[in-house]
Every structure is written in structure tokens, then in C-alpha cells.
């Protein structure tokens, strides 16, 4: 009987905290406040993240000094898209170990979700079994208020994104009437106006676009990068103000590496990035944007890696605008004989010359890559020289072969989108 009374009293306390949180929310208090309320009540550190695991708030009532990065490293295995259908009975709580400077820390992760949509996570540091029944109830109740707060934040973000997408489209496609109006609107959208700028175009599966745009680092060169979605690509604009020309590349590289790591951690795969040359001001962005897209498409086509800089494409950027017939004739003139020889004699001379060039003409490395003896490779190269009438030591001959190989690669390219 007494136990029942006690339970009733505790439930009432829980309800009071819930009511307090709801009132606070109605008064415009934000997520850090709700996280602090929860953490103080259960006496454990609490971290609140959104659906892509970006940390929205951390409160540590015990003063453990635990530090968290921009994203909480929740392990993979959960679809993070806003509209991902989650089964109603999916386990709302899961435990894990978090590797920190202080060592491994146990945490319990509560999904903040409604049946068809995930809004975020409430992470309580400590094992689930260490939590009392009352604590669990408070966490569940305050998770509801956190859900409302996250939903409001997301709704505001969607409106802001729509305005930004529309405006950025106009800037990147030179679609505006006056520079004055352009700068005025940019200022209203809190766009960091100080150039120069770098434009990055990220290609990712269409169903992960909205996730990908929110996974980028929140800060670059002391200002917030602009993330927008245009024509099924995520476009990122970085301000390079106060950076020297020598620093541009290094800064962009480290930004891209961080972005790629975030995408990887969230199971966003098959991503490619194209980066245009530096745009001096807002009104030059359209050129840099087009360059980034050319770099992206050519990088994908020619297989030059996941990250392509327009400035590093060299002569390859001229390939796509040359007449197809001329390109075909060029490739046939310089490689036609070994292609025909390969077909007739069932040899691999084309692959041999390609690997030879990829290995910078190093016989030992090339032989290893082809799994053949060095002498076999030398014989093959001699045969190639004989058939094509070239000298593989001459730079002009090598250049022609290289160009012809790139043209052949574009031949196999057939996009179906």
C-alpha cells in the first residue's frame, strides 16, 4: 500500500517536470534549456542531437568535463533521412560505448521520433541499467518536448533552406537584375559577403541529398559555409576571406576530408565532389559554379578520383567540347592498331599501356600492377612501340597516347540518370 503511494507521488513529480518543460517550451525556451532541465533532474550528462547526429545541446551536471565534437559518433545502422519510415516497434533505446579523452563511456541513446519520422536522439551518459524507473519516465516525457522543439527547428530550417536555395540559384546562374538588389538580399539571408569564394558541388544519391546538405562542417575559415541544393546536387560555398592563395587549396582539402568523413559515417556513399576555381566576388560565383560542375562530371567520367579540382583538369577540360567525330578519329589514329591487335591476338596491350602511364612509366611498379614479369612487360611495351610507331621515351608521343586513352574512357561513359 505504502509502495503504491510512493509510486503515485513519484509519478506526480514526473508530471510536474513534464508540465514545466512544456511551459518553458511554450515560452520560447530552446533545446539547450530542455537538455539542462533533463540532465539536472536525472543527475547525468545529457546530449541532444538532431536526426543527422549533429549535437544541438550538451549539459553536464556532474562536471565530468566530457567534450563532444560537432557530431555525436553514434554507430551506423540507422537510416537518417527525415522521411525514413521507421517501424513503430523499433527499439527506442540502445546502449553503446563512446571513446573519449577520459576513456570509454557508456551511454544510452533514446530515439526522438514519431512512427514515420526521426527527429533526433537524446543521449544520456551512463548504462541503461543504471537508470531508475523514474529517470526513464522523465527521459521519455522530456523527449516529447524535445521532439516538439526539434520539429519547430526543422520546420524553420526548411523555410530558410527554400529561400536560400531560390536565392543561391539566382546567384549561381547569373539570374538577377541589379548587383545592389543581390547584395541586399544576400545580407538579409546572413550571407557572409566577403570574397573570395570557393564553390564545391557534391554529387550524391538523390534520396540522400537533404541528409548530405546537413552533414557538412558548421564552420570554415571563421564563417558558416552555405549549403544549398540545386539540380540534384549539393552546392557548398566557402568564404576564403583573409586566406592567402597558398592556403586556399589546403583549407579546401581539409574541409572536404571532414565532409567526406561525415558522409561516410552516415552511410552516404557514392559521392563525388567537383571544385571550381576561386571566385573573386559574389558576382563571379556563376563561373566558379559551372567550373565545379565540369570538374565533377569529367572527374566521374574519367575516373580521376572522388575529388576533382577544375584547375587540375588541365587540357582534359577541352575534351568534352571538341567534336565527337574528331575525338574518335584521334583515339583511333593513336590507339587503333593495338586495339585491333588485342582483338585479333587476345592480348592486353591497351591495358598494359594504360597501367604503364598510370604508374608513371615505372617498369617495376607497372609489372607488379599487371602481375607479369618485368621482361614480359618490356616485350609488351616494345610491341606497342612497333605497332604504333612511337617512342615511349618521347613526351609528345606519350601525351598523344594519354589523350587518346582519356577519349576512350569517355566512350564507355553512358549516363543514365
Amino acid at each position, binding site marked *: 500500500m505504502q509502495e503504491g503511494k510512493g509510486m503515485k507521488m513519484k509519478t506526480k513529480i514526473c508530471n510536474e517536470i513534464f508540465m514545466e518543460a512544456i511551459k518553458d517550451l511554450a515560452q520560447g525556451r530552446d533545446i539547450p534549456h530542455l537538455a539542462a532541465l533533463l540532465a539536472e533532474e536525472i543527475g547525468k550528462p545529457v546530449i541532444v542531437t538532431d536526426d543527422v547526429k549533429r549535437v544541438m545541446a550538451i549539459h553536464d551536471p556532474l562536471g565530468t568535463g566530457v567534450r563532444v565534437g560537432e557530431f555525436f559518433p553514434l554507430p551506423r545502422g540507422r537510416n537518417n533521412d527525415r522521411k525514413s519510415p521507421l517501424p513503430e516497434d523499433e527499439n527506442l533505446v540502445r546502449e553503446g560505448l563512446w571513446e573519449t579523452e577520459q576513456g570509454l563511456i557508456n551511454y544510452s541513446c533514446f530515439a526522438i521520433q514519431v512512427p514515420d519520422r526521426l527527429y533526433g536522439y537524446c543521449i544520456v551518459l551512463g548504462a541503461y541499467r543504471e537508470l531508475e524507473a523514474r529517470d526513464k519516465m522523465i527521459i521519455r516525457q522530456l523527449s516529447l518536448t524535445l521532439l516538439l522543439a526539434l520539429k519547430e527547428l526543422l520546420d524553420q530550417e526548411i523555410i530558410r533552406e527554400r529561400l536560400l536555395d*531560390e536565392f543561391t*540559384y*539566382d546567384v549561381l*546562374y*547569373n*539570374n*538577377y537584375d541589379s548587383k545592389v538588389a543581390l547584395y541586399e538580399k544576400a545580407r538579409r539571408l546572413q550571407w557572409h559577403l566577403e570574397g573570395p569564394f570557393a564553390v564545391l558541388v557534391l554529387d550524391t544519391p538523390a534520396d540522400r541529398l537533404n541528409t548530405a546538405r546537413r552533414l557538412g562542417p558548421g564552420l570554415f575559415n571563421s564563417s558558416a559555409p552555405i549549403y544549398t541544393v540545386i*539540380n540534384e546536387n549539393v552546392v557548398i560555398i566557402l568564404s576564403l576571406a583573409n586566406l592567402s592563395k597558398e592556403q586556399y587549396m589546403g583549407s579546401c582539402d581539409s574541409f572536404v576530408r571532414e565532409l567526406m568523413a561525415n558522409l561516410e559515417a552516415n552511410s552516404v556513399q557514392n559521392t563525388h565532389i567537383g571544385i571550381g576555381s576561386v571566385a573573386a566576388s559574389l*558576382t563571379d560565383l*556563376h*563561373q566558379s559554379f*559551372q*567550373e565545379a*560542375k*565540369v570538374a565533377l*562530371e*569529367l572527374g566521374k*567520367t574519367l575516373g580521376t578520383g572522388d575529388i576533382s579540382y577544375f584547375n587540375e583538369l588541365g587540357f582534359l577540360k577541352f*575534351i*568534352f*567540347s571538341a567534336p*565527337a567525330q574528331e575525338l574518335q578519329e584521334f583515339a583511333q589514329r593513336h590507339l587503333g592498331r593495338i586495339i585491333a591487335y588485342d582483338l585479333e591476338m587476345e592480348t592486353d596491350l591497351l591495358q598494359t599501356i594504360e597501367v604503364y602511364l598510370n604508374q608513371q612509366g615505372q617498369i617495376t611498379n607497372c609489372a607488379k600492377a599487371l602481375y607479369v614479369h618485368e621482361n614480359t612487360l618490356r616485350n609488351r611495351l616494345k610491341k606497342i612501340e612497333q605497332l604504333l610507331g612511337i617512342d615511349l621515351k618521347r613526351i609528345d608521343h606519350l601525351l598523344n597516347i594519354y589523350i587518346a586513352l582519356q577519349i576512350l574512357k*569517355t*566512350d564507355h*561513359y*553512358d*549516363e*543514365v*540518370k
Partner: protein
Amino acid sequence: MAPSQKGFLFDPNRCLGCRACVMACAAGKNLPPGIYLRHVEMQEFRQGPRIMKFFLSTSCNHCVNPECLRLCPERAFRKRQDGIVMHDLSKCNGCGTCTRGCPFEAPMVNPTTGKAVKCDLCYDRLDEGEMPFCVAACPVQALRQIDIWHLKAHAPDAVKRLHGVLKLQVTQPSIRYLSLKPGKQVLRHAGRKGDEDENEDLQ
């Protein structure tokens, strides 16, 4: 605004090669003699034992990544929210960079004005709910104006390229084609009197 990219859908099985689209465009846009913003060419290729022939009608493709917009030193090109690539005559100095840079050779320099001219997808007609001159003139509806992003609902089997179209489409042209169906093409009688002269005029 919903993402939109206006463009063309071309059916090579229907095109008669009559060039009504070319003429309607030239007349509607009041172009000087010899300047055409649309071209119709016969394509021929061998598919196994069969020789395939069909007509291809092309103009500016209002690319998603327009080279003209990237290269123009005067920033005379822009792309509207609906994807139409526009050319501002007041900014153009007739340098011809766009004509050389476009992989489809769509912009042309108008000898009477000395400035570049290109298809604007008859945006003024579109804004009033009418079709572009070329689309409206096609007697067999081989040419249609579509929204590329919402194409799947109208033509799920449309393809990005046909024989005779650039293979490497870095600029992402906003044109789609219906697949070639062997034996379905309706061709004008080859070698008909006047065809040679007409072709030469149009090139």
C-alpha cells in the same frame, strides 16, 4: 518555387524531316535570311545488318551546366528559375566566345546586328501558356516541350542520347529522346528533287 528545368522531348520515329520547326522559328523570331536557331539533319548508322536512318532536330538545349554562361566574358547569359538559358543582347559584344564554346553550336552571330542570338525557348509565349514556335509548328508532334525533372510521368522510356548526339554530356543538355524503333521512322523520299539545295541552304 518547385525545381523546374524546361527542355525538349524529341521523337525520332515521328520526325518527317519537313523542317517546319526550323521555318516556324525563323519566321516567328524574325531572323535574317540564312540564320536558323534550329537545325534538322539526317542521321545514319549501321545496326547489325540494318542501316538506320532518322532525322534529328536540334537547337539550344538549355543545359543544366551551360558552357555559354561559364565562358561569356560579358556575363550576357543567365538561367531563369525554370531552367531557360537567356541571352541579354544589351550586354553582348558579339565576340563569338559562346558560339565556339557551346558543344552543340547553338548560339550564332547574327550578321545584321553583329551580336549572338540563340533559342530562348520562346519564353514569352511559354509565360502566356502557349508553346514555342517550333513545337507548335510540328505537324506530327515529334517535338514537345517538357519539364526535364518531371519527365518520368510523361515519358518513362525517354533516353538521354541517340546516335549522332554528343556522347559526353558534361553540360547536361535538357533534351530527351524517345528510343529509336527500327522500321518505324517515316522518311521523306530520299533524293527527291530540291532536297540537296534545301539542305545546303539550311546548313
